[in-house]
């Protein structure tokens, strides 16, 4: 009898937990699906469900030169910031990853702090510094600001990859007569490469999507894609933005699939 009671109790627990989990997963995925569906509307409003379907807003996107211009700027800044983040982040990660010294721990906290501190406050402070030293805002200031907020992702993922490295591999390489630089190039680098790529990917995505830092550090000529979209949305609810969102969602899913193959992204972020 006790057994039956426990079974009922166990079932109620499983049902409740599974139900909430499924609802949560639906809540997570629904917005992206809704945007994809609405972007194929043939109407002029964001009514859901759409009155009919067409690809007209995607065609419209082809002529939206303002969005093209903003997308190009965002891409250029994201590429440079990611490159700079990888160069600075990987070297720093090598220095602090397998070290338990106080300075390594302090540096680790410093490099991670842009992740939790309000980016808008950093954006404002960086603008103040640049104007104090007489450096006009430009693509360069954007790249510098983006690198500060993107480098933590590279450092974190590289540190994690280095922490999983087997010391015996490096020791045997040395015992067999390989120099430190040879061991680094032939053993360390290939083994941490997926971690570096995963970190660089997240850095790129977060730079491409950054608003708070860009708001302060761009000049009038440098329109950035997320800011352009944000300002368009504040003004009017444009269906072109839905089509652009559709493009971005599909591109994100495609990149995620590639990254999952190349770096095992999902395992990397849950271990």
């Amino acid at each position, binding site marked *: 009898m006790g057994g039956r009671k426990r079974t009922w109790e166990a079932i109620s627990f499983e049902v409740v937990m599974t139900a909430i*989990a499924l609802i949560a997963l639906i809540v997570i995925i629904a917005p992206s699906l809704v945007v994809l569906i609405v972007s194929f509307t043939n109407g002029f409003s964001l009514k859901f469900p759409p009155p009919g379907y067409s690809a007209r807003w995607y065609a419209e996107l082809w002529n939206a030169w303002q969005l093209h211009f903003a997308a190009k700027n965002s891409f250029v800044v994201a590429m440079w910031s990611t490159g700079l983040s990888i160069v*600075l982040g990987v070297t720093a990660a090598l*220095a602090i990853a*397998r070290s338990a010294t106080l300075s390594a721990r302090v540096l680790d906290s410093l490099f991670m702090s842009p992740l939790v501190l309000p980016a808008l*406050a950093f954006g404002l402070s960086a603008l103040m510094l640049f104007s104090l030293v007489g450096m006009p805002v430009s693509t360069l200031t954007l790249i510098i600001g983006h690198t500060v907020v993107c480098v933590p992702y590279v450092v974190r993922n590289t540190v994690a990859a280095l922490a999983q490295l087997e010391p015996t591999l490096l020791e045997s390489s040395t015992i067999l007569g390989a120099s430190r630089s040879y061991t680094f190039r032939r053993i360390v680098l290939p083994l941490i490469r997926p971690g570096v790529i995963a970190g660089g990917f997240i850095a790129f995505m977060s730079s*491409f999507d950054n608003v708070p830092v860009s708001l302060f550090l761009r000049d009038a000529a440098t329109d950035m894609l997320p800011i352009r979209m944000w300002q368009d949305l504040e003004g009017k609810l444009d269906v072109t933005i839905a089509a652009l969102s559709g493009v971005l969602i599909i591109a994100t899913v495609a990149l995620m699939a590639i990254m999952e193959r190349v770096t095992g992204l999902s395992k990397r972020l*849950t271990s």
Partner: protein
Amino acid sequence: MAAASVPRDVTSYSIGLAAPLTLFFLVFFVAPLVQLFVLSLHNDTAGVVWGIGQYVHFLTDPFSLSVLGSTLLLGVEVTALCLVLGFPIAWLYHRVGSRAKTLIILIVLLPLLTSVVVRTFAWIVILGRQGIINSTLLSIGAIDAPVRLLYTQFGVVLALAQVQMPLMALPLITALGRIDMNFEDASCSLGAGSWRTFWKVVLPLSLPGVIAGCTLTYAAAITAFITQSLIGGGQMLFMPMYLYQQASTLQNWPFASAISIIFLLAVLAVVTVFGMLGRLSRGYGGA
């Protein structure tokens, strides 16, 4: 050299390799924040007269204090909702096959990597007057006229919870994966039911993950400028928009600096408290 005979630890690299990034951070991250602090200690907009006038202004102004209060409250509500929805996801993750596991992770990761503007835009479509919720409720006759969901606290909390969910779910999935399943089995075979085992064994053991998730979610929710302003609209003002208005529209940099510093300290305080709780919980859960 004598040092050559001493085998160096081949698995560690010189701390000097961190020098370039350290220098970069000192110049472009630490120095600006120091300058922000210095400027906040000026009473006039030009930044000539020293004083703590900006802080006095903020802390004695009921409007400013209410903005700070509603921002911190917003963070609590979003974090609580993320925890309630995120924990079952992590629980389910560890009970399904590997294909379903990958699917769950990709669903959770998708919003993390999708543009925040796109995610927020989706919620405008869902919550709007002609949105899904309103048209569904109208069609089943639950309401006679569209309900206002956009530009409400409910809308902001819901949208932010979805936007920040990965930050809660990922640490929870990691934490639950580290729990020894034998504890659960032992608890059940000793007569505790599933609910009791969950509250008394699984939840306490996953506390490090809960705290890590709460820290990230809270910090992200209160600083989420785009979602707050687009879903909240003009009537609801939170700290990031307040800061931006003062800095950009009103060009009052010293006051904007003081707002930034107060906001930074608020975030830092929350992170520190959570961090202390995290260390305590590791002593408790780190079996």
